[in-house]
């Protein structure tokens, strides 16, 4: 008699975002709109391979010695060091010298590796704080590793602005040496970032209670169109004048969005050490390598080579900064259009200025679950149940329809 394996195993509901994608694909309405996707779309609603990427790929293919050999465990060295310079400010030699960097499977792989490393070696608190709300996968990434995942207040739904007091309060009340995940810019899902003054208060408080900042940088260049502006918080935390002197600072970097390299899985993990821990660099690097070796052996080569070329080659780099502005500007103009349509044309009840104030790929519309459901069912407009809309999914041919649909569901619900 044969045995039976895996009897306990149960089918799980699909990941909400992937489930949304599946429903959208099945929808036969020709004027359906996908505002769930976390990827950029051009004004025709099409995916966009950045010109900088196309040029880099063509150049790479012609590079003598181009091959598909294994990379080292820590990844493609030219990529790893250029990536560190772009997120940490390459002019700041002092910070670069205190940093250990390895290549990762995009931003998720970086968060996962950071979590594994901290779990193994960080002796501070096991509590890890996420903003409320945050990217859905954050919770799973750290809970699956065994962190005690908690949240800090971030978004004030009434004022549609930052709940700074709640945030600072959580920092004060957390067990000392807790890990705080901070969105470096273009907060997902709210699109709301702290101002420079607010950042400085947050970092002061982090330092006072000796917490460890873990920056998630998935949208550098996407918020303002400028790579430099968008690394403000990370520079403030890592520079010589930072209030944070004794804790390491961890940065999880993704090139998925800002290079449009989504599926290529290009990212890096940077651990910036305080001065008195710099001699631990070789040991930390060797331990990161050991973890990587046990999970994937070594990271994927192609995407890293493409991004390295863009970061190193002056002309490609210039092209990339232009591409970033194209994306950031198009998204900004869609924000303005949607707000104007709602406010001026449809006179939809409520204030819609937050759509314009928010930055990055997303807008936290403030639409509730029922409205989102009605948008999908009656209008074929798809967004996740939190009310987060991917502004990149809007374009000149659908923004009017979307505004009309939002107007209808808002009015419908106010009548109930």
């Amino acid at each position, binding site marked *: 008699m044969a*045995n039976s394996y895996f009897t306990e195993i149960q089918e799980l509901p699909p990941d909400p975002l*992937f489930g949304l994608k599946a429903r959208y694909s099945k929808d036969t309405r020709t004027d359906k709109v996908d505002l769930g996707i976390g990827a950029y779309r051009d004004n025709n609603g099409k995916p966009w391979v950045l010109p900088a990427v196309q040029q880099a790929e063509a150049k790479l293919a012609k590079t003598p010695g181009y091959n598909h050999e294994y990379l080292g465990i820590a990844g493609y060295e030219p990529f790893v060091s250029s990536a560190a310079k772009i997120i940490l400010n390459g002019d700041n030699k002092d910070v670069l010298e205190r940093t250990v960097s390895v290549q990762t*499977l995009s931003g*998720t792989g970086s968060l996962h590796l950071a979590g594994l490393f901290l779990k193994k070696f960080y002796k501070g608190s096991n509590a890890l704080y996420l903003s409320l709300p945050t990217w859905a996968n954050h919770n799973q*990434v750290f809970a699956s*590793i065994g962190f005690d995942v908690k949240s800090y207040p971030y978004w004030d739904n009434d004022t549609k602005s930052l709940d700074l007091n709640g945030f600072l309060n959580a920092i004060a009340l957390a067990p000392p040496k807790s890990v705080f995940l901070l969105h470096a810019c273009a907060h997902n899902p709210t699109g709301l970032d702290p101002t420079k003054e607010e950042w400085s208060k947050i970092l002061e408080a982090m330092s006072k209670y000796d917490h460890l900042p873990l920056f998630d940088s998935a949208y550098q260049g996407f918020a303002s169109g400028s790579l430099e502006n968008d690394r403000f918080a990370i520079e403030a935390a890592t520079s010589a004048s930072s209030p944070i002197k004794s804790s390491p600072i961890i940065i999880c970097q993704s090139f998925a969005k800002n290079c449009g390299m989504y599926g290529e899985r290009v990212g890096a993990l940077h651990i910036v050490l305080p001065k008195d821990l710099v001699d631990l660099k070789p040991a930390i690097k*060797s*331990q990161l390598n050991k973890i990587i070796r046990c999970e994937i*052996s070594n990271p994927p*080569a192609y995407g890293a080579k493409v991004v390295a070329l863009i970061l190193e080659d002056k002309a490609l780099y210039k092209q990339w900064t232009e591409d970033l502005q194209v994306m950031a500007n198009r998204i900004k103009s869609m924000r303005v259009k949607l707000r104007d349509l709602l406010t001026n044309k449809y006179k939809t009840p409520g204030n819609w200025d937050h759509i314009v104030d928010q930055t990055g790929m997303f807008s936290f519309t403030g639409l509730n679950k029922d409205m989102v459901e009605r948008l999908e069912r009656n209008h074929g407009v798809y967004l996740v149940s939190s009310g987060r809309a991917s502004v990149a999914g809007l374009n000149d041919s659908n923004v009017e329809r979307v505004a009309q649909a939002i107007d209808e569901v808002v009015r419908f619900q106010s009548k109930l």
Partner: protein
Amino acid sequence: MQPRMGVRGLSASARVARWNEIPLAPPDKILGIAEAFKEDSNPKKINLGVGAYRNNEGKPIIFPSVKNAERSLLETEVEKEYTGINGSKPFQSIVQNFIFNNSNKDAAGAKLIGGNRIVTAQTISGTGSLRVIADFLVRFNSAKKIYVPKPTWANHIAVFTDAGLDAEFYAYYDNNANDLDFANLTKSLEDADPESVVLLHACCHNPTGMDLTPEQWEVVLEIIQQKKLYPLIDMAYQGFASGNPYKDIGLIRRINQLVVEGKIPSYSLCQSFAKNMGLYGERTGSISIVTESPEQSKAIDSQLKKLIRPMYSSPPIHGSKIVETIFSNPELLESWLGDLDQVVGRLNTVRDKLYQKLDKTNYNWDHLTKQRGMFVYTGLSKEQMIALREKYSVYATEDGRFSISGINDSNVDYLANAINEVVRDFK
């Protein structure tokens, strides 16, 4: 130098309070060899440590079929979107058809595919697939023990133990006889804890190059049924035994039959295109779980996604797009099969040449002719390997494994001579 890099220097109490000890992890053996090789100034030096193919000039190659596929990708690619968590759907079905349906030659495999009894996920090459299935088994298999052959690929044990499986050896090779130790192999599997996992190399066993015959597999599969062992097959070298990937999967075909007959309920296959398509660094491979029912397939598919989503969200697309391009174009597919056959052909030619030139008066080298794949497992002792390195600048792992692809027309005489010398010196 090493101790200085450890935590000896830690004194400030803040540091002690903040970190557990962070010792320097030992360097990877193969990389250590590469480093030492690089620093050696002997112009005759030979690196037999690399696990990647080199041509007769000692250079890495891109398979011509892969180059063509990449060229066409460059012209036609219009997006770099995320694939699903379990990877690209076309890639999944290509793998299923290629391996389980075996170009319509495997009726049992076809039945399993048709009955929705195979769940395939694209993974981070072979290592990533081993890791995902290890994590999965830790969660869902009743037994936490995995038996691996002694010897095996060094990273197998690291991957499995890191995931939380308890790795133990089963006998595989007799170092004195330079041959498979089949009697002890069967004995140690008969003594295995029931319902444990057993790792089987599909072909071209790494590092010994020595595979089981179909008759021997039959005996092993019988024990697997009796002891209710869970077969986990690692196939990193499909095509390297015969030159033809469709021929190298006798074990899988046979096990598919046993599954269809209800004798083995489930098994898993880790597969990699690293070696047989030369896609090493692009990290292209898959895990397939043959399940007990279509309902279970759905559940397992969802659980794999749950495992992978927090690890890395979705796998890299460049390599899988190359695979998709090749398999969707009959000419490219034909060309790839030809490329692979040539690569394997060169390895076999060099293996023969080395064999011809080795002195058989002091040592029986017949095992070389039986071994298959990218390696020869010489049986040379650690002392002999060190002598090879120090006296002759021949670099390889100290277990006596040579990566054949480092051998070519211009160094085979020098190498054979060096081996003959150390065999004589350490007789």
